[in-house]
């Protein structure tokens, strides 16, 4: 959705400028682009809802515009286009004045947003910004007998929101060629190849973005091996990234080129420099959150959010067992669960990881290679067991996790890093009145409103310092296969990212 923002300073008191422009039908007296203008239906020109019908001075047609709001106190008004000979769909404009108190001058801002065919966006932005708004500034200055405002020579061209990237962008509406990690067939890390792919222009409701950082997740391994049927070769892996929007399709509201966004969701396709995807899946990133941290933490953070707040509501008094407590999600579960008042017990594979887990809120790290974790939990909880167990290890570990569970405990199986999970003895769950959950990320993040709600709680926890995401190791995107090997070899600590 193109946006136009123009502003100027006039050497006249704000009351004098407002007096000229507040009359919704008065533009025929001062704007050079406007011919004859009338208010339809005999309404007053300052009545909200009134419609002005005017000819364009160059004879190219008529425009009907409706007054949406007018405030004498704020010295502002808003209006929309109802009919026009040019494709400015959904055009809404706002005009506002502010006094410059140290010189009896006036700040005047005129802004709008609209939809239009992408190939005409640049032309229409220029027409509206220069032909209407800046021409209007000059006309009112002349009417008030002031020196004509004009951009000072030798200064940079005005840019309301400079895009962070200075690279040459792809022409709007055209397909782009980018480099990506392509899954050639299901299998080991060797099936990932680095090559050029085409990225389509954004369709309706879509945006094209340039990734700044991409998150590496265990689900990518499942997609690579074909265990999850989310990516059919040849296809692109990756469910998490952060970057900047370079182009928006029609019907996208509230996002524009230059906006920083992130996502953590299906469909996969993040292992690429550029990507086109549905705008509804994106979460705007707060300024304080950089791309690397967002890519390292969004999927894991959103997972931690729904595991702790939606699958179960962990709180004070809970005894929570977190497997792989120094891993990506494990670290966040320890931080957040301990902040929520739970006693956190964790399993780790090395003294170094035990130290990490303890620093992240895990009160009782268990070195599972040295001590049986069921026995350790029994000792730590004085035989009571854990009220919640988070198990992404899977395989034979899940049955052992059940042994560590308290009566009426909740066993949450959210992954299977060590292998497929054999059938469980559900009848045996009666021995503890236990619950078993097998949450699927997609089922908790399928709805854009829920995604934003999860992201809100996650960002608040990050901003308050409850959660601390440290991007672990970074691999060049082209070396994704090496990153997969490291992840599967359990060599990584924290969250690994890929840099395009």
């Amino acid at each position, binding site marked *: 959705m193109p946006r136009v923002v*123009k502003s100027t*300073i006039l050497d006249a008191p704000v009351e004098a400028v407002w007096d000229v422009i507040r009359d919704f039908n008065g533009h025929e007296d001062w704007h050079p682009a406007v011919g004859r203008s009338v208010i339809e239906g005999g309404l007053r020109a300052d009545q909200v809802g009134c419609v002005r019908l005017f000819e364009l001075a160059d004879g190219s047609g008529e425009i009907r515009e409706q007054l949406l709001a007018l405030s004498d106190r704020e010295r502002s008004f808003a209006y929309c286009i109802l009919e026009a000979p040019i494709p400015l769909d959904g055009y809404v404009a706002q005009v506002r004045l*502010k*006094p410059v*108190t*140290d010189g009896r001058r006036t700040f005047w801002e005129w802004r709008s947003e609209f939809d239009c065919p992408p190939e005409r966006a640049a032309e229409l932005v220029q027409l509206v910004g220069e032909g209407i708004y800046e021409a209007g500034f000059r006309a009112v200055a002349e009417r008030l007998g002031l020196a004509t405002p004009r951009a000072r020579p030798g200064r*940079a061209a005005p840019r309301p929101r400079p895009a962070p990237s200075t690279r040459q962008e792809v022409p709007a509406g055209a397909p782009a060629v980018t480099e990506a990690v392509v899954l050639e067939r299901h299998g080991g890390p060797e099936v990932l190849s680095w090559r050029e792919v085409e990225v389509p222009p954004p369709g309706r409701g879509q945006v094209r973005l340039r990734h700044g950082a991409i998150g590496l997740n265990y689900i990518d391994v499942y997609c690579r091996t074909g265990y999850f049927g989310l990516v059919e070769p040849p296809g692109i892996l990756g469910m998490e990234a952060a970057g900047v929007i370079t182009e928006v399709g029609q019907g996208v509201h509230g996002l524009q080129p230059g906006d920083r966004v992130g996502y953590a969701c299906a469909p996969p396709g993040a292992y690429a420099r550029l990507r086109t995807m549905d705008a509804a899946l994106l979460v705007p990133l707060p300024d304080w959150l950089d791309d690397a941290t967002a890519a390292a933490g969004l999927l894991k953070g959103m997972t931690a959010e729904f595991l702790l707040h939606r699958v179960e509501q962990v709180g004070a008094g809970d005894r929570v067992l977190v497997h792989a407590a120094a891993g990506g999600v494990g670290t966040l579960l320890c931080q957040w669960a301990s902040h929520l008042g739970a006693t956190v017990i964790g399993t780790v594979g090395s003294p170094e990881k035990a130290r990490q887990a303890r620093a992240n809120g895990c009160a009782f790290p268990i070195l599972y290679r040295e001590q049986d974790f069921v026995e350790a939990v029994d000792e730590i909880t004085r035989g009571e067991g854990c009220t919640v167990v988070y198990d992404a290890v899977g395989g034979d570990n899940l049955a052992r996790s059940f042994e560590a569970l308290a009566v009426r405990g909740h066993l949450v199986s959210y992954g299977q890093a060590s292998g497929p999970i054999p059938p469980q003895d559900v009848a045996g769950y009666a021995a503890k009145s236990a619950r078993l959950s097998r949450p699927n990320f997609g089922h908790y993040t399928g709805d854009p409103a829920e995604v934003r709600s999860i992201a809100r709680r996650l960002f608040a926890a990050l901003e308050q310092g409850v959660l601390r995401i440290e991007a672990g190791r970074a691999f060049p995107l082209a070396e994704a296969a090496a990153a997969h090997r490291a992840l599967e070899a359990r060599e990584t600590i924290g969250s690994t990212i890929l840099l395009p």
Partner: protein
Amino acid sequence: MVKVYTSSVLAAPADQVWRVVRDFNGLPDWHPAIADSRIESGLPADRVGCVRNFNLKDGGNIREQLLSLSDYDMTCSYSILVSPMGVENYVATLKLTPVTDGNRTFAEWSAEFDCEPGRERELAELVGNGVFQGGFDALKQRFGG
């Protein structure tokens, strides 16, 4: 409730001015009335909730808490926790807006506060003219205006 509003135009791009004024601990670098400043508890100066503790050149000590900071809107707001001025419920907002014509900056600094009856005019003058306009005048010297 007393309301004070001061605005000015600076002859530099808004992002350039913002880099200077967004530093909640940076007042001594640009405001002529401030002698020194520190952020309490070792927090980063752009962490909402952090407290700046600064001394005026004429000797007073003021503690102010950062309530909001948006690099997107180029706006920050803060409240006074302790000051010798005798104001209550004092909340101030500093906002920059780009002026596209000439790539300049429209700067607004406003405040609302309560005080003892009879002192409204004196305090509005102190805040609006002394603190805010004094700051703008210094920024205009630095950036032109």
